[in-house]
């Protein structure tokens, strides 16, 4: 009885999760000039229109460039910090780790507003670097959170063995530490990339008509007009997300909900 109820709720919830994605991808294929679901006829014309519009192409490029750059900077900053936090006991260690993790629980609108106000004081507004620093701040916790648990105590003995065998710290890092934290680093970097790629709340303060990311462009657009081009743009981001996730599942495995062996 209870089990049947759980199944019904679960199927309804899964349908609820799938519905908007299916509708958007479906509506992007319609031949009508308004959004229709189920689509009437099938065409890729709206995808063509989107790719023919230089403002979309440039927004896609900026989003990608921003996400890649922010991820690289975040990894370069987060990995040394993670090693220090995991390997050394020092004053301010707790404060450091909590500060670095706090953007996770901070409303992005607040941070975006703060960066805009601060940026206008130091001349860092509405530019690629202005977008970049904000994105690095909000995505660094994802890298840190994924890497920290992998710098375990067992690992430390491997590093000590490496040092004992005559390796200098940097050699130990590249030959011993890095291979051990690779999977955490990869998944952390992917989550960081995605967090940057989909961000609206932070970017919106520092974008302009020319310098805009795809989520911000969509956001500004749908408030005024709704046509199948928007569905095509959305559809493309959904397809990109699905591909990334399937790749992620095949490489690092997403089966996080497997029960322990009984």
């Amino acid at each position, binding site marked *: 009885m209870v089990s049947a109820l759980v*199944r019904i709720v679960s199927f309804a919830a899964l349908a609820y999760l799938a519905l908007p994605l299916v509708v958007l991808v479906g509506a992007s294929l319609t031949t009508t000039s308004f959004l229709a679901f189920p689509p009437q006829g099938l065409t890729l014309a709206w995808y063509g229109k989107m790719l023919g519009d230089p403002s979309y192409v440039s927004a896609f490029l900026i989003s990608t460039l921003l996400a890649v750059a922010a991820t690289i900077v975040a990894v370069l900053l987060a990995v040394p910090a993670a090693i220090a936090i995991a390997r050394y006991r020092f004053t301010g260690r707790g404060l450091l780790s909590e*500060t670095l993790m706090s953007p996770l629980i901070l409303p*992005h609108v607040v941070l975006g507003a703060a960066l805009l106000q601060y940026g206008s004081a130091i001349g860092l507004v509405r530019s690629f670097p202005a977008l970049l620093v904000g994105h690095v701040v909000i995505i660094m916790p994802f890298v840190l959170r994924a890497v920290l648990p992998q710098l375990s105590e067992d690992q430390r003995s491997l590093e000590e063995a490496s040092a004992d065998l005559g390796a200098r710290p940097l050699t130990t890092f590249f030959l011993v530490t890095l291979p051990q934290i690779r999977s955490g680093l990869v998944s952390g970097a992917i989550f960081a990339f995605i967090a940057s790629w*989909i961000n609206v709340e932070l970017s*919106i303060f520092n974008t302009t008509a020319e310098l805009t990311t795809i989520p911000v462009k969509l956001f500004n657009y749908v408030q005024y007009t709704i046509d199948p081009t928007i569905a095509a743009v959305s559809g493309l981001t959904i397809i990109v997300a699905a591909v*990334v996730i399937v790749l992620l599942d095949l490489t690092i495995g997403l089966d996080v*909900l497997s029960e322990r062996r009984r």
Partner: protein
Amino acid sequence: MSGTLRPVLLLCALPAAFFVAFFLAPMAVVLIASLTTAAGQPTFAHYLRILADTYHWDVLWVTFRIGALTTLVCVLIGYPLAWYLVRIVKWRPWRRFCVILLVVPLFTSNIVRSFGWMVLLGRNGLVNDGLIGLGLIERPMRFLGTELGILIGLVYILLPFIVLAVGNALAKVDPALEHASADLGATPAGTFRTIIFPLSLPGLMAGAVMVFMLAVSAYVTPALLSGGRITVFSMLIFQQYSSVFDFNYGGALSITMLVLTLALVAIAGRLSEPRRA
């Protein structure tokens, strides 16, 4: 200490400096701005204005009511779904598919997800068509611009967080504990009540706190699904910075929101802390 100081400095100097420059300093600027006038004189006027203005109280009330309802609905749907995925599904490919379905929305922006609901919940959207088709309503219901519409959108966006948090906790429960409980005479329902649920509670609390915070601070989803008819707190902040350009008052609103959210996080953290003897 001298032995560890050098490597710590080498490792931390850059990340710490970056966070001071682009995180702590901006937040400090906002805090200072919220306590000064446009001319730079210290004042509490902005906070007093927030306290005195009943409009702000209304917006706060709406924001937190939507946040609480979102959290409640997410828990009520998310716990059974997590249970289903961890305990009931035996066929691994199906569970994989479900997990992917759960994660794909997390990887698409709020805007795309909310846009999907704008299409679905419109006057001639699929939801109204379906309800009329089923004979449940006669004329299209209005979803956009109602709290119900915002709730549907927010639950949709935040449900994966709670499912993953609860699912992780459930998957970690040692089967030996359930065996021990059954061995000592507990029925399956008794084992759930006394063992599994208490052990999954920290995961549930963590997920619920996350959902509540994101729901309270959400901007995009309410902005799109409210159709301008409902205002939540993050919209007030955005207005001050993007159209009113009153950074001092906006700063006070930001700090208010931050303090309220962090206070709630701290309370929830205290409540969900594992017990110590």
